[in-house]
């Protein structure tokens, strides 16, 4: 079969970075192409050019046999290109159906045909077994539901070219299986699909061919059958990664952190657990199990109803984040864009922000020399790729942004560090770096609480695993006895609804 997309020598720069450098790319009808690469390799940028979001600096494009010079999101859509973007792009105030048909509203006599749109949306959602009422406002949905809406929206176009940029980052296992079934069906219909993911385990289920980018350059492409995961990783990283889940041993000591009977709303119910010196405790669970809410409540970001928190055996009162930080408890939040970074501020400002209590005198005067030292040390220690700490944080790639967030918390001496999904959307090499950071903390005797939806990493890194469902801890497992199946069993142990 012929190529339906041919991009030749595409280049694209952003201030300070060459995101794409002479990249060529092809896609055939009826194939699923895995587009792979580290954070900042240029995958999203390439696909945004193909879908008309960005304009290329150089190069030429042939799409469905036509030479195309200038694309907008609208013309791309009209040509049959659908994209599920890495970031959620939905209007919270509009309903699911209104979002799905946004820009392509169905009309009757020139006016909106809401009934038809609702009906079509319902059919679409049913066809893909997505359990959402098309008339609910999107703002009321959870992140995973939103991602499903995003997928449904892309599928509602009779697309000939479908781009999925990390579609599964917020999905549950069942929803992912569902998605794979959809992908296979579309492939059979002759649709060309580009699939981007950092969850390399997923590839085997669907991908026909892989293409690898590194630092904005084309590296290679080959049929998936003819390669192995470790070879792919080596191409991505430019070197071999020995261990995907490096594990270090440390002697387990006394209790450093304990939560007793914590309650905070519907999703945090009677949570009790403890952390010991020299161990990483993982929290597993399905999307919406209440893990994020638990960490936020502990950290004082959300109000608590009841419960006690102990650090080194002493009870601490945490009503707001600053109390937690002062008590030696810090949280690396889940949502990088929303909760993690002040994107307009510099890397330096971001790293300094939670440490100003140390950097400022009693009267509040900031010691700028100390501030510079602290940030430069952090940038060095965490190998953050940034030319100058005064650069605005939003010009960094995802992985580097995550490192900024981690580093700002570790620049101070804390007793307990909570990581909420620290590896989401991060490439393999960066993941390993994050694991190493956690291991390092563990060896230093600092308590690490590690929330993740990816079972392999939970199993690979933690020493003890708490499983949550419906806002409760349903099981505590030692890593030696834990298996994926066992965790899933407890993660689906829902309460009987009255």
């Amino acid at each position, binding site marked *: 079969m012929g190529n339906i997309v041919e991009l030749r020598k595409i280049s694209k720069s952003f201030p300070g970075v060459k995101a794409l450098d002479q990249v060529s790319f092809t896609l055939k009808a009826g194939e699923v192409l895995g587009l792979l690469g580290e954070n900042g390799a240029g995958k999203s940028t390439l696909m945004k050019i193909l879908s008309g979001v960005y304009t290329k600096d150089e190069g030429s494009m042939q799409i469905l046999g036509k030479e195309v010079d200038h694309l907008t999101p609208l013309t791309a859509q009209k040509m049959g290109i659908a994209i599920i973007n890495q970031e959620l792009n939905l209007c919270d105030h509009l309903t699911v159906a209104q*979002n799905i048909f*946004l820009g392509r509203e169905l009309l009757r006599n*020139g006016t909106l045909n809401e009934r038809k749109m609702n009906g079509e949306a319902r059919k679409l959602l049913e066809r893909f077994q997505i359990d959402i009422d098309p008339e609910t406002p999107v703002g009321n949905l959870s992140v995973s539901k939103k991602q499903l809406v995003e997928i449904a929206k892309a599928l509602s176009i009779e697309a000939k070219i479908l781009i999925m940029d990390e579609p599964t980052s917020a999905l549950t296992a069942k929803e992912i299986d569902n998605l794979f079934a959809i992908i296979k069906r579309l492939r059979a219909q002759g649709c060309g699909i580009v699939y981007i993911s950092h969850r390399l385990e997923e590839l085997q289920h669907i991908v026909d061919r892989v293409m690898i980018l590194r630092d904005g350059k084309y590296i290679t492409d080959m049929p998936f059958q003819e390669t192995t995961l470790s070879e792919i990783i080596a191409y991505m990283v430019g070197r071999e990664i020995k261990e995907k889940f490096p594990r270090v041993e440390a002697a387990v000591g006394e209790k450093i952190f304990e939560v007793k009977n914590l309650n905070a709303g*519907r999703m945090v119910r009677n949570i009790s657990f403890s952390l010991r010196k020299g161990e990483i405790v993982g929290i597993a669970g399905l999307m919406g199990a209440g893990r994020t809410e638990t960490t936020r409540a502990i950290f004082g970001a959300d*109000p608590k109803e009841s419960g006690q928190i102990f650090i080194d055996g002493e009870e601490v009162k945490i009503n707001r984040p600053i109390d937690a930080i002062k008590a030696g408890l810090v949280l690396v939040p889940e949502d990088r864009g929303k909760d993690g970074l002040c994107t307009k501020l510099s890397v330096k400002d971001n790293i300094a922000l939670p440490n100003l209590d140390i950097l400022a005198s009693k009267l509040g005067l900031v010691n700028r020399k100390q501030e510079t030292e602290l940030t430069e040390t952090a940038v060095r220690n965490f190998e953050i790729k940034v030319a100058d700490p005064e650069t605005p944080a939003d010009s960094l790639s995802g992985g580097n942004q995550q490192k900024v967030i981690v580093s700002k918390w570790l620049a101070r001496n804390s007793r307990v560090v909570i990581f909420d999904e620290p590896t989401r959307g991060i490439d393999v090499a960066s993941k390993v770096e994050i694991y190493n950071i956690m291991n390092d903390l563990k060896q230093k005797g600092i308590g690490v609480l590690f929330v993740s939806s990816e079972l392999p990493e939970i199993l690979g890194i933690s020493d003890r695993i708490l499983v949550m469902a419906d806002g409760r801890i349903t099981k505590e497992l030692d890593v030696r006895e834990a298996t994926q199946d066992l965790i899933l069993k407890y993660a689906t142990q829902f309460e009987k609804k009255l």
Partner: protein
Amino acid sequence: MGNEKKQSKLKRIVAKRGMGQVITVTFGLVGLIIVFSFLNPFFLTSRNISNLLRQIAPTLLTGIGQSFVLITGNIDLSIGSVVGMSCMISATLMTKGVVPWVAVLITYLASLLMGLLNGKLISKAKLPAFIATLGTMTIARGIAQIVNNNYNTDSIGEAAEGFQQFFYYGKTLGLYNTIWITLVIWLIFNFLLSRTRTGRHLYAVGSNLHAAHLSGVNISSTITKAYLVSAFCATTVGLITTATSGMGTMDAGNGYELYAVAASVIGGVSTLGGQGILLGTVVGASIWGVLQNGLQFAGAPVAIRNIVIGIIVIITVLMDIFVRSNKRIGKAKTSADGNSSPALKHKL
């Protein structure tokens, strides 16, 4: 099952784009009317009601325009000046002997150009709306002053009698024409906003600009349309003002942009974009008008009027926030998360 579905339909309507707020403030409006009708025997006379409706018209009209703009997540500070500019342009032309209806046409064209300028400065040149319309606010006021060489105009004269009747003094079927004009404009724009594709796009742009852009919505033209509507409404108010006074006043419309914001916001239109319906703007403008009229009759000095109005603006919005956050607590208690707290989302 069927019952459940029906119930959820009702709930849905209530939840719909600020319908809840509309219902809440309607109660408030009724309360005010009751209070004032006790305080003042003339309040519910047909003469006063018809008067009152005519007084509400300018606030409602500018409120409609402002609501369109607010829904897209922007603001129009130039409304008051466009009222003044329209008043001066139309009156100057008429005093110079131009046929009133031609003057009206020219006035609309001139103001729509101002609306176009607003729209393009914001959507194409990417100026923040606050700044762009602060600039055009000053410019339009300057134009209002310069049109007749820094003077208010003379009387627009006998020839404009028909014009004055049409926009202000005349009655049709027992109701002042001003009220009819307002009603027709409201119906048209309400239809546009709730039933057409452009209307949908206005909400989408205000809710998530980037998403709307990626969905193929033409951002620039959508935002520009909102500003054109706003300019259109402001011009109509300017013409009503000319008809009312029978002359052009350079100062006309001063401060109307803020009344328009108040009317919209009291009626549930969010200054953050993406939310609100024009029914709310009607209630908001009515509350505003009833307060002005009622307090004046009650003999309240301007000072008290200002204080009361300020408090009411704050309270209605507080109430809305309270009602919404209470609804949420019923389901799940969230505090500092982005979805539940408007202020946390709020930029400027």
